[in-house]
């Protein structure tokens, strides 16, 4: 699509630091080698101010049109962090990097501009983040639900860890399910019910 030459991880970091300066709060490279030759694969991590999200993605597109893997998210208590996980330089033998651009949104203002005009394939991930984190993506071309059922209660966001997360009454634990009442008595007496205090799944972390 464009002819920017191949860059090393450090060169990409330099380009981002030169362009965003103080807007870039963290930039690091992690590497990992596996197998006998331990050929390295690199991951780049950028944490930037929320206003810089679109410029940062435009910068990445200027380097090479990236592949957007997914938008991941973390509930950090007062903020929600969104991580846009890309990869660049595919097609280059052992030369592809994962580039993660992370922004923080305070829970008082959970809005983020859409990036579907830059990368149309981001639509799925943006719709998913709206329903799972209660974020508003401004300018999203299609803001319907994606994975959750239509009758899912409003204002419940499964991946949030605060009061808007899944309430305990919505959780059904398999071990709490009793034997159906309309069946004959089993030949061997049933085991005693599960001891008190044993909780699986229903606890908040």
């Amino acid at each position, binding site marked *: 699509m464009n002819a920017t030459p191949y860059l090393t991880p450090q060169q990409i970091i330099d380009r981002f630091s030169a362009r965003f300066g103080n807007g870039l709060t963290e930039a690091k490279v992690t590497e990992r080698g596996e197998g006998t030759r331990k050929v390295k694969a690199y991951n780049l991590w950028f944490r930037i101010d929320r206003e810089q999200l679109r410029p940062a993605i435009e910068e990445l597109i200027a380097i090479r049109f990236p*592949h957007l893997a997914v938008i991941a998210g973390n509930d950090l208590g007062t903020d929600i962090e969104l991580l846009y996980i890309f990869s660049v330089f595919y097609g280059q033998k*052992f030369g592809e990097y994962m580039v993660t651009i992370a922004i923080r949104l305070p829970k008082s203002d959970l809005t983020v501009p859409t990036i579907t005009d830059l990368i149309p394939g981001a639509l799925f991930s943006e719709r998913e983040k709206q329903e799972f984190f209660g974020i508003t993506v401004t300018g999203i071309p299609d803001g319907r639900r994606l994975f959750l059922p239509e009758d899912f209660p409003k204002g419940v966001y499964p991946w949030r860890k605060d009061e808007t997360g899944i309430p305990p009454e919505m959780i059904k634990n398999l071990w709490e399910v009793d034997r159906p009442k309309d069946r004959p008595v089993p030949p061997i007496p049933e085991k005693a019910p599960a001891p008190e205090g044993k909780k699986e799944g229903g606890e908040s972390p």
Partner: protein
Amino acid sequence: MSAEKAKKTVPYTVPIGPVHPALKEPVMFTFGMEGEIVRTVDFAPGQTHRGIEWMGMRRNPVQIVHLTDRICGICGIVHSLSFARAVEQIAEIEVPERADYIRTILHELERIQSHLLWAGVAAHELGFDSLFYLAWRVREQSMDLIENLTGNRVNYGIVQIGGVRRDISDEQRALVEKGLDYYQGLLDQMATLFLKDSTILMRCRGHGILSGDDARLLCTVGPTARASGLNMDVRQDYPYCAYGDLDVKAILPPPETGGPQGDVYDRIIVRLLEVGQSIGIIRQCLGQLPAGEILWEPKMAKLLSVLKKAEGEGIGRVEAPRGECMHYVKMAGKEAPDSWKVKASSYSNLMSWIPMLQGEQLADIPIIVASIDPCLSCTDRVAVTRNGQSDILTKEDLTRLSREKTRRMMQ
């Protein structure tokens, strides 16, 4: 024009689903039809969402490995491998070399199994049932090998954090080699059956086209992207497991068949060639299988205590049979991870249905939908039951339409 009259004009809306029109998996399609031609496409996944990520965020990583095994019934290793690799990076666990090779061997056996399963489904959608039976019969060999190596036909349970749970013995090695010879001999036959057959050519060539630009913009992955000419394959681009030691090249439709055109036919070619590639990779791995341990730490209590202290974030990424599979994990020195996001390969591929289906005929829907090899259990991860609606076309109706079209074309 009155509102009453407007309703009866084109395009007609044809809902299909939630039973999947091609595979036995649920997704809801809404097509805007003008006669036989598809004008607009809309779909709603999420019919098999099980909240696996939510469950994972309340369990320890060793428990999650077993949960990841059950994300998909076909890709038995890719999710557990992606997850384990992400956690290994966070906890700085060094996987033994032998384990990396065993992971690679199973990863490739899975690819053979998955591609043959797909080849059978594709033949069935076209109404070529003898080929469907043949593809699924030969697939059994790879299933038997997987069962022999892991103890299971599906949900392998082979990956553990820090390595694998079973070693490959010398007898098993001989079995795998025998199995590979079997497939090597079959490859030419399968290629002839699929690629020299005039009916398959008629039904697939020039149908369901995804241009290279669309594939790039929609973030398509795997064989679907490669059939559209995108040179991407995680095994080639981003070394993991034993792939850093091997010479794997992304398979694109070869010039002999006219290079990448991005149609259904190209997706068949890419997958068939990849079966051959997988055989080569497994042979190479068996040839240079390093000796040594298979687990970083066999003692569970020790492993769990290390994982409990781990802090940081990691990305595990592998090339699944359908394309890139990626897990993002964040650990914060607690038993359960702070965050876990699963990105299955079909998650990236579903959006490519829209450009592929527009302008095609109703009877071509099954094969085009099947051509990206969608896996919805992976993509959706609350089961809902709704009352059936009478105006919904079932899978059987569609398959019948597809077969009738094949018959018409053969006359």
